[in-house]
C-alpha cells in the first residue's frame, strides 16, 4: 500500500479520536467571533482594529487553553497498554505517528482559528468597525502569532506529557515549565539585590526575563499587555519576540519528536520516563525552593543580607526539601530519608550557587570610570511627581559637563557614612561607550539631599524626568486644571494651548529642588489626549508665575489656597504607630473636629491637599495626623470634603 495513503488513513483515524476537540475548537472560536462582532463589545475610538489583531485577550486565552489541552491529548494512546500495543504495532514508524498527532492538532486549532478571525474581520469591515488598510497586517499577524503561540504551548504540554508518567506529575511539570523560569529569575534578582546593595537591575537578566519565561514571551509576542493599555500593535515592536517564539516552537516540536522516538513504550513505576528528567526536576525544584528559603529568611536581617541566615537556610532547608522531594518523586512517605548522595550533591550545588551570587554581587558593585561613560541617567524615586522611573531612566541622557558633575556627586554621596536617620534611594544608569549599560542603586543620606539640586537643575534631568516637557505638540490634547477642590476644562485653541504649555515648561525649568521641597503643589494641569495617546500631567507650584498668570487670564484663580475657601469644619484624626517584629501597626488614637473660624483659618494655612503631596518623602510633614476639610464650593450651595496633610 502506498505510504501516503496509509498515512492519510492514520490522520483520519486520529481525527476521529479528536472529534470532541474539533467541536470545542469550532464552537469556542465561533462564539468569540460572534461576541466580538457585536457592537456592544467593540468600543469607539481608533484602536478598534486591535480586536482583530494578536493582542486580543480572549483569543490569547483560547490559544493557551487549547495549546495545553491538545498537547496533553496528542498521544492519548500512550495512556494504556492496549492502546499502545495497537498504535505501536501498526505499520508506522514513531516519527510518522508523531507527525500525525502533531499535524492534526495544528489543523484542529489553526483552521477554525483562522476562519473565525477572518470572518470576524469581514464582519467588522462590513459594520464599519475597522478599516481594511490599517487592519490587514494586524489581522494576518493575529492569525500567525497565536498559531505560533499555540504550537509553543502545545510543545510544552507535550513535553510534560512525554516526560512524566502520571497526570499529577505532568501538571506539576507543565507548571514548572511555565512558571519556573520567571520564578527563578525573580529569585536571582532578589538575591542580587540583597547581596549587592548597589544592584538595581541587570540588562541581561531583563532580557532573560522577557525571552526565557514562556508566559512573558507569549504576552510580549502577542502584545496582550499593550493591547490592554490601548496602544497600537506595531510589528517592529514584537518582531524579536515573534522570532524567538517561532524558534522555541520549532525547538520544542523537534525535542518532543526525539523524546517520542526514544521514549520506552512500557510504563514504569517511576514518576518520570527518564532518569535524567527526574534529576533535572529534582535539582531545579530544590534550587528554586532553597533560594526562596534563603531569600525568605533574610526578612529577619531587616533590610540587609545576613550570611548566617543564608547558612541556616541551606543547612536546615536543603535536608528538609530533599526529603520532601524524595517523597513527592517516589510518592512514598517512607522515602523521606533516602538518596543520600543526592543530598550531598544538593548541598554542594547550593553552596556553589551562593558563592556565584556573592561573586556576581561584588562584581555588580564596581562602578565604571568616567571616561568609559557616554551618558548617565539619575532617578530619585522619592520624587514621585517625576513619573515612571523606568521611563525616566531610558529617556534621560546627561552628557558633557553635567555628566562629569553628576558622576562626581554620585561617587561622593553613594555609600557615604552618615548619622542621618533617613536615606533615599538613587537609581543610576550609565550608558557606556562600549554599548553596554550599567545600573546602580545608591543610598543617599537625608542630610546630603540638598546636593541633588545640582542634578535637578540640569535640562537633561528635567526632560528625562517630567513627561510634560517631552510633548511634541499639543494639537490633539485638551487641558484640564484642578486644585483638588475644584476643576475646569479649558476651552482653548491650539495656539492658546501651546502658549500655556510653553509657560508651564518655562516655570518648571526654572524651579529648583529647594523650591520643590519647600512648597507643596497648589494645582495640576492635565493634557488629555483626544487620540488615545495617553494623558500627561504636571503639578503647579506657588512659584509658577507665568502659568498662574495665563490661567488667571482665562478666569481661573489657580493661586487660590485652602484657606481662601469657606471652610465649615476640619476633622483631625491622629494615628499612632505600634512597632512590631516585622510590621508596624497603625491605629486611630484620637479624633477632633475644629469648627471655630479662627482655629480653622490658622490650621488651613498650614494644610496641603493630600492628592498633590506625592513627593511626601522629600519634605517634612506630620505623617501621623490626617485632616479632612469640609468646604463650600464656589456656588456656596454644596459642601465638599477633601483630605489634607499638614506640613511642618
Amino acid at each position, binding site marked *: 500500500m502506498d505510504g501516503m495513503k496509509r498515512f492519510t488513513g492514520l490522520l483520519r483515524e486520529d481525527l476521529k479520536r479528536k472529534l470532541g476537540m474539533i467541536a470545542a475548537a469550532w464552537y469556542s472560536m465561533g462564539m468569540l467571533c460572534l461576541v466580538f462582532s457585536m457592537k456592544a463589545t467593540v468600543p469607539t475610538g481608533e484602536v478598534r482594529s486591535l480586536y482583530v489583531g494578536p493582542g486580543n485577550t480572549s483569543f490569547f486565552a483560547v490559544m493557551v487553553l487549547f495549546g495545553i489541552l491538545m498537547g496533553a491529548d496528542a498521544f492519548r494512546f500512550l495512556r494504556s*497498554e492496549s*492502546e499502545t500495543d495497537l498504535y505501536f504495532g501498526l*505499520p508506522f514508524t514513531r516519527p510518522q505517528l508523531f507527525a500525525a498527532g502533531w499535524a492534526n492538532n495544528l489543523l484542529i486549532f489553526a483552521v477554525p482559528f483562522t476562519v473565525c478571525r477572518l470572518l470576524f474581520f469581514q464582519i467588522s469591515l462590513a459594520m464599519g468597525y475597522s478599516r481594511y488598510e490599517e487592519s490587514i497586517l494586524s489581522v494576518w499577524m493575529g492569525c500567525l502569532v497565536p498559531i505560533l503561540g499555540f504550537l509553543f504551548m502545545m510543545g510544552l504540554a507535550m513535553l510534560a506529557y512525554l516526560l512524566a508518567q502520571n497526570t499529577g506529575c505532568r501538571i506539576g511539570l507543565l507548571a514548572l515549565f511555565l512558571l519556573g523560569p520567571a520564578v527563578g529569575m525573580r529569585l536571582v534578582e532578589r538575591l542580587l539585590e540583597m547581596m549587592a546593595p548597589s544592584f538595581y537591575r541587570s540588562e541581561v537578566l531583563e532580557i532573560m526575563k522577557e525571552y526565557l519565561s514562556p508566559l512573558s514571551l507569549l504576552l510580549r509576542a502577542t502584545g496582550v499587555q499593550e493591547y490592554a493599555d490601548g496602544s497600537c500593535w506595531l510589528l517592529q515592536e514584537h518582531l524579536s519576540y515573534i522570532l524567538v517564539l517561532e524558534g522555541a516552537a520549532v525547538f520544542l516540536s523537534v525535542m518532543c519528536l526525539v523524546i517520542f522516538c526514544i521514549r520506552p513504550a512500557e510504563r514504569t513505576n517511576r514518576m518520570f520516563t527518564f532518569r535524567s528528567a527526574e534529576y533535572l526536576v529534582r535539582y531545579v525544584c530544590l534550587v528554586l525552593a532553597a533560594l526562596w528559603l534563603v531569600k525568605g529568611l533574610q526578612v529577619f536581617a531587616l533590610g540587609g543580607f545576613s550570611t548566617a541566615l543564608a547558612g541556616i537556610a541551606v543547612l536546615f532547608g536543603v535536608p528538609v526539601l530533599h526529603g520532601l522531594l524524595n517523597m513527592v518523586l517516589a510518592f512514598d512517605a517512607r522515602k523521606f530519608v533516602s538518596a543520600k548522595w543526592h543530598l550531598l550533591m544538593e548541598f554542594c550545588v547550593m553552596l556553589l550557587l551562593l558563592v556565584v551570587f556573592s561573586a556576581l554581587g561584588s562584581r555588580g558593585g564596581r562602578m565604571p570610570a568616567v571616561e568609559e561613560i557616554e551618558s548617565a541617567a539619575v532617578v530619585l524615586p522619592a520624587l514621585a511627581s517625576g513619573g515612571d522611573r523606568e521611563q525616566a531612566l531610558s529617556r534621560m541622557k546627561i552628557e558633557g559637563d553635567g555628566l562629569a558633575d553628576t558622576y562626581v556627586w554620585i561617587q561622593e554621596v553613594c555609600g557615604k557614612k552618615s548619622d542621618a536617620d533617613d536615606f533615599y534611594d538613587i537609581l543610576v544608569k550609565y550608558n557606556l561607550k562600549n554599548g553596554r549599560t550599567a545600573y546602580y542603586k545608591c543610598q543617599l543620606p537625608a542630610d546630603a539631599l540638598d546636593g541633588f539640586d545640582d542634578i535637578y537643575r540640569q535640562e537633561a534631568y528635567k526632560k528625562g524626568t517630567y513627561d510634560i516637557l517631552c510633548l511634541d505638540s499639543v494639537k490633539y490634547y485638551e487641558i484640564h486644571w484642578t486644585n483638588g477642590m475644584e476643576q475646569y476644562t479649558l476651552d482653548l485653541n491650539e495656539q492658546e494651548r501651546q502658549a500655556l504649555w510653553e509657560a508651564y515648561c518655562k516655570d518648571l525649568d526654572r524651579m529648583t529642588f529647594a523650591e520643590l521641597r519647600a512648597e507643596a503643589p497648589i494645582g495640576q494641569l492635565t493634557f488629555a489626549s483626544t487620540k488615545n495617546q495617553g494623558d500627561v500631567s504636571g503639578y503647579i507650584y506657588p512659584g509658577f508665575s507665568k502659568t498662574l498668570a495665563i490661567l488667571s487670564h482665562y478666569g481661573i484663580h489657580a493661586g487660590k489656597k485652602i484657606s481662601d475657601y469657606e471652610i465649615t469644619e476640619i476633622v483631625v484624626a491622629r494615628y499612632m504607630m505600634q512597632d512590631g517584629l516585622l510590621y508596624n501597626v497603625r491605629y486611630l488614637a484620637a479624633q477632633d473636629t475644629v469648627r471655630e473660624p479662627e482655629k480653622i483659618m490658622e490650621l488651613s494655612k498650614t494644610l496641603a491637599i493630600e492628592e498633590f503631596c506625592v513627593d511626601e518623602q522629600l519634605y517634612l510633614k506630620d505623617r501621623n495626623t490626617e485632616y479632612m476639610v469640609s468646604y463650600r464650593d464656589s456656588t456656596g450651595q454644596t459642601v465638599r470634603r477633601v483630605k489634607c496633610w499638614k506640613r511642618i
Partner: protein
Amino acid sequence: MIEICNVTKRFGKFVCLDQVSLEIPDGMVYGLVGENGAGKSTLLRLIAGVYRADAGEIRIDGRRASAVAAKQEVFYMPDRQYYDRNATPLTVGSFYRNFYAGFSMEDYRGLLEMFELEENALLDSFSKGMKKQVFIAAALCTNTRYLLCDEVFDGLDPQIRRVVNDLLLGAAEGRKLTILIVSHYLEELNKICGHKGYLHRGRILTEPEWQELL
C-alpha cells in the same frame, strides 16, 4: 523468516528476556509456552516493534522489526485488544483496511458471518470470546505474512477454538502464514503447533530441558 538474535529486555533491574535467540521459518506455526511473567508477551511486543530490545536484534525477512516494511508484513494481536467505545465489527475492519494493503473486507465479513457476529453491533455489547473472534477475523483478513497471537484461545469456547485452529492451520498451509502463538493452553498448542518453545527465566528451553524442569 523471523530471526531473534541474543535479545535482552530489562524492566528496571528485572531481566525479562536474557539473550534469547530463536528462528521461525516461513509457514511454521510456533507455540511459545511459559509461566506467568516469563516474558512471552514481551517477546511478542519486541517482534511487533512495540518495545525496543536493550540488546540483540530482531529481524523479519532480514529487515529490522521496527522498520515499516517489516511491520507491514506482521499483524500483532495482543491479549487485550483496544477498540473505540463506539466500535463495531465493521468499524474495526475499516480501521485495519486503512493500514494493511491486503486487507479483504469481503473475507472479513464472511468470517464475521461464520462466527455469527452482528457486524453493526457495538463491541462493548459482546462477550470476551466474541470480541476475540472479531479480532481473529481481522487478523486473518489483513493477509500479512506473519501473525503474532497473544493468548488467542483465551475466552473461546471449545467449538470456536476448533474453528480457530482450523482457520489458523489453513492459513499456514494455504498461504504460508507464519504464526507465533503465545498461550497457556498447552493442549491447543499441541494440536496446531509444529514447534514449541518454553520460556523460563528469560531463556528459551528445549523440550527435554522443559520436561526435566517439570
